[in-house]
């Protein structure tokens, strides 16, 4: 059996190992998270991902892990992500300075509220996507693992020395996701039940001080828990002891976020995509748009602001292959079954266990991006129909 080019929307180093090909030569030393020993104990199939060794799946397999998260609750180790504190001034000073990095309304974000953000570059492209929270006397930021060194350098170069940019390296990050997450977490801290989507709070969970946000990357209700590294394993064990909670690996994390229509940085968004092209206009609040009280003043504003009004030439859309064959990242899209140049490309794709069929996201020219439009993806030399589909594929289940 030839294990051909494979793609589940993960960096290449991740892929080489999931089919048992062994470590490539010259692989740099992998980092491990505070839960590494637990993953191994639980039968996690460990793979390199963004410089870390993490479980792609456990014994139950991706499909069952995915479905369990949608039905009950899944526990994810996302400790590889970057946690950063921006502090050193009043909230106003911190927020105002941070607004020079992102096109979001930071200043008016309520205390103990979190928001989705984008670091943009001067060309209007996306350097990374992130979550940021108003913690009163500081801003708490969570960035992607693969971008964290660059993001931290970027923040430091702009914000220091007036403010301090401090990577949080002594805390793990866990995500508890799924409809049973509230029941499970409020069993440890009743206050968890009272949090709304995108609320943040410091809660004592099993005696451990955790920075908790009601958010996630699955489209399900759930929480992300920043926990001191040395107590992370004990807390994970406590959560896993609940009958509704199973450990979930990177494979299901990817299929869950894909069904939820959420972007994976480096695939669906990068420096060549603008927020408007990526269909992320919703993430840019009115205050930072043309005519807003603090319009512009972020990198790439001269590109991004006009696009918010006029649109862009292309757009990220949901795509459903009509057949059963998954269409993965890199598949070229054509307007017709024969002839013509490619009009776009799939940026994420695979099998959606909840949808029960293949799902994908990709970029199309705006005039060919209407929901219901049939286009064709070229797979193994054959053009197969794909239908433009509204995102998300699976409705979000947030507690607003």
């Amino acid at each position: 059996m030839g294990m051909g080019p494979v793609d589940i929307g993960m960096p290449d180093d991740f892929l080489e190992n999931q089919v048992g090909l062994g470590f490539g030569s010259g692989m740099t030393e992998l980092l491990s998270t505070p839960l590494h020993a637990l993953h191994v104990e639980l039968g996690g199939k460990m793979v390199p991902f963004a410089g870390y060794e993490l479980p792609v799946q456990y014994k139950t397999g991706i499909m069952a892990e995915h479905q369990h998260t949608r039905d009950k609750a899944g526990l994810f180790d996302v400790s590889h992500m970057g946690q950063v504190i921006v502090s050193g001034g009043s909230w106003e000073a911190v927020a105002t300075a941070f607004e020079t990095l992102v096109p979001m309304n930071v200043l008016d974000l309520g205390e103990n509220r979190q928001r989705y953000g984008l670091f943009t570059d001067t060309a209007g492209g996306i350097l990374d996507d992130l979550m940021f929270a108003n913690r009163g006397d500081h801003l708490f930021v969570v960035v992607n693992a693969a971008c964290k060194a660059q993001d931290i350098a970027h923040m430091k170069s702009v914000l220091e020395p007036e403010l301090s940019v401090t990577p949080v390296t002594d805390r793990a990050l866990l995500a508890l996701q799924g409809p049973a997450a509230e029941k499970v977490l409020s069993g440890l801290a009743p206050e968890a039940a009272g949090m709304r989507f995108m609320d943040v709070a410091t809660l004592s969970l099993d005696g451990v001080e955790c920075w908790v946000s009601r958010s996630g990357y699955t489209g399900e209700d759930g929480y992300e828990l920043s926990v001191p590294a040395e107590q992370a394993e004990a807390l994970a064990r406590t959560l896993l002891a609940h009958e509704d909670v199973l450990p979930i690996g990177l494979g299901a994390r990817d299929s869950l976020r894909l069904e939820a229509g959420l972007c994976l940085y480096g695939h669906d968004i990068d420096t060549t995509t603008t927020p408007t092209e990526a269909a992320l206009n919703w993430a840019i609040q009115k205050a930072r748009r043309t005519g807003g009280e603090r319009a512009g003043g972020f990198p790439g504003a001269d590109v991004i602001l006009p696009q918010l009004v006029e649109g862009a030439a292309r757009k990220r859309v949901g795509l459903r292959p009509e057949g059963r064959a998954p269409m993965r990242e890199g598949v070229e899209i054509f307007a017709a079954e024969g002839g013509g140049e490619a009009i776009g490309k799939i940026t994420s794709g695979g099998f959606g266990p909840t949808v029960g069929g293949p799902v994908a996201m990709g970029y199309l020219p705006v005039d060919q991006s209407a929901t219901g439009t049939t286009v064709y993806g070229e797979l193994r030399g054959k053009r197969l129909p794909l239908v433009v589909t509204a995102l998300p594929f699976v409705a979000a289940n947030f507690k607003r």
Partner: protein
Amino acid sequence: MKYTEEHEWLMEEGELIVVGITEYAAEQLGDVVFVELPEEGTEVSKDDEVVVIESVKAASDILSPLDGEIVEVNSALTDNPGKVNEDPMGDAWFFKIKPSDLSPMEDYMDEAAYKDFIGD
């Protein structure tokens, strides 16, 4: 039963050879979600890509282990790809080939050699 380095198993059935993938391969692939089989009657050469298998995480293919004609395919797999995970060594065979040259069979591994090959 013979095994290839591509993790296929080959079983003689009269003058035909039945081809499937090993338990080890099915486990490495993870949940199989798509199987594309060749048409019955297709003439194939050794190492031609004859079957496409996609799991939740990866796309891969099965190469023909021999020259010959594909005389039967297991079309139940098209509708129920998950069978590959449930019973890779039995019900989830992929195709039967009528070989025109059996000599490569000599080079394929027996069970002990295959177990050794996968480090079991």
